[in-house]
């Protein structure tokens, strides 16, 4: 075990771990909210995230091309990419709810059936993106656009819009503007979501449906609307995560959702599935632990560390670290 490496790079490993963890946490919110309301693992949520990364990528490419842009224009481009990613992910999440889940739940299908439907939807969405050069050719898109959508099975990188400045040192590590942007905006999004669910009327309706769907219906909550809203919020968060991921990692691929999705799901279970604050805690712990673990054992052990951590925590706390559900979350 390489303790020297861990201690010498402790600050860097921790800060980048937090940045990764914040992205995991944003995706985890989608898993945890849908689980809280429907007791269903939305396995296609990873694809909701993946489509967001492409929306961010394409928007940036279309607006920037290969030229250098001024700082002000760069900020504008990034904002557009963020909005596009959130809109794309939210749309995919709503389509999933409408076509992969609602018809099944309406007929009172067992949750297992919905789970299979989710896995199927996940493959379809990923493969559609994997075939996108052919799909684009089929639609006869113009050269400019089909150049962006081509090469469907290879990594696509994001043009860098803003210079990644070194802001301030922690220990030996110069914290960069991307690190700060990712961590701060992820936490801001999560606080906003938490407040919305706790304080707004719609949020109260969602929590009521999570605690007791029949009684919530007796209060006049439109269950379909509450479920839709849950998918919408999860999609928006996954879109924001996708944008931040593209800032930090800068490349994406049609199957990028798989590992990220599994990690985010792990974060959700780690923190206590159904619990919004648990998703944040689980995500951050997972991100940091992975980085420390890969420093100690070598980077090929990164995923092993993540899943061993999950198993160990569940052995001692089967309901996760915070362990209460969305429904029971108090105001």
């Amino acid at each position, binding site marked *: 075990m390489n303790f020297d490496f861990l201690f010498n790079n402790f600050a860097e490993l921790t800060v980048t771990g937090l940045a990764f963890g914040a992205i995991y946490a944003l995706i985890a919110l989608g898993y945890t909210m849908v689980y809280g309301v429907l007791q269903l693992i939305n396995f296609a949520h990873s694809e909701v995230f993946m489509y967001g990364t492409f929306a961010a990528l394409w928007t940036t490419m279309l607006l920037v091309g290969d030229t250098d842009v001024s700082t002000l224009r760069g900020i504008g481009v990034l904002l557009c990419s963020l909005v596009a990613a959130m809109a794309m992910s939210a749309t995919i999440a709503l389509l999933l709810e409408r076509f992969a889940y609602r018809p099944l739940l309406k007929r009172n299908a067992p949750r297992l059936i919905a789970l299979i439907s989710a896995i199927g939807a996940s493959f379809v969405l990923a493969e559609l993106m994997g075939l996108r050069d052919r799909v684009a050719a089929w639609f006869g898109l113009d050269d400019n656009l089909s150049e962006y959508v081509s090469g469907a099975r290879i990594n696509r990188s994001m043009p860098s819009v803003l210079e990644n400045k070194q802001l301030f040192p922690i220990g030996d590590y110069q914290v960069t503007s991307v690190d700060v942007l990712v961590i701060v905006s992820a936490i801001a999004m999560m606080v906003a979501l938490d407040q919305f669910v706790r304080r707004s*009327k719609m949020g*109260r*309706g969602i*929590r*009521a449906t999570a*605690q*007791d769907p*029949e*009684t*919530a*219906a*007796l*209060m*006049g*909550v*439109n*269950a379909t609307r509450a479920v839709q809203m849950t998918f919408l919020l999860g999609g928006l968060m996954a879109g924001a995560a996708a944008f931040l991921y593209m800032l930090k990692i800068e490349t994406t691929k049609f199957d990028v959702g798989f590992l990220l999705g599994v990690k985010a799901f792990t974060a959700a279970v780690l923190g206590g599935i159904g619990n919004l604050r648990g998703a944040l805690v689980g995500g951050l712990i997972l991100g940091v632990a992975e980085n420390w673990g890969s420093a100690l054992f070598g980077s090929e052990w990164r995923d092993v560390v993540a899943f061993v951590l999950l198993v160990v925590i569940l052995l001692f706390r089967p309901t996760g670290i915070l362990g*209460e*559900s969305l*429904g*029971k*979350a*108090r*105001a």
Partner: protein
Amino acid sequence: MLLEVEGLCVNYGHIEAIRDITFGVEEGSITTLIGANGAGKTTTLKTISGLRKVREGRILFEGKDITHLPPYERVLLGLSQSPEGRGCFPGMTVRENLDMGAYVRKDARSKAYAQDLERVFHLFPRLEERVSQTAGTMSGGEQQMLAIGRALMAKPRLILLDEPSMGLAPKFIQQIFSIIGEINEQGTTVLLVEQNAAQALKRADTAHILETGEIVRSGTGAELAGDDSVRAAYLGGDV
């Protein structure tokens, strides 16, 4: 008639839960359905509020056919149900539960809203003392009061009460029935489902007895309370 139920049949899978139930609820009255466990009382209420699918028959509210409306639209029309047992949202505070009752109202900051809250606290002073306590940590009786108070916050024309006395200590039972009387005197029509037949018949204008999914007797509360066979079957011989 405020509510009319005509030839209602409801199934759970292949099992008939209620069969050909017909009755009405007069505006301003207290109507009660009594009967043993499993007679179909709760199913009848849940079907009226839209939680169970109707196989046959119709439900009319103020003459409007609501048989196939989703539950939330029935709440908008003025139907409000307090569910059986501890039907509160356990993770929410008393105040949040009451706000949930008023979910379909759009006047949360108005004077009328504050007055309705005041009215609930007047009926159930206990709730005011515990306004920021989590509902799941309260006693069964307190949760029952909360469920009734919450149903009132919707300002219903018709309130459906499912076993409000279930699991309560005897002194609370008296209290809850006198509160139901008070709610009715303030102008809300009540449809009451009870196993405590003695108390229910004492308050009811009209009563129906359910046995294995069917109405077997109907009459005024006083009539049924005075009937020998009813007394023997449901009132343990003496009232």
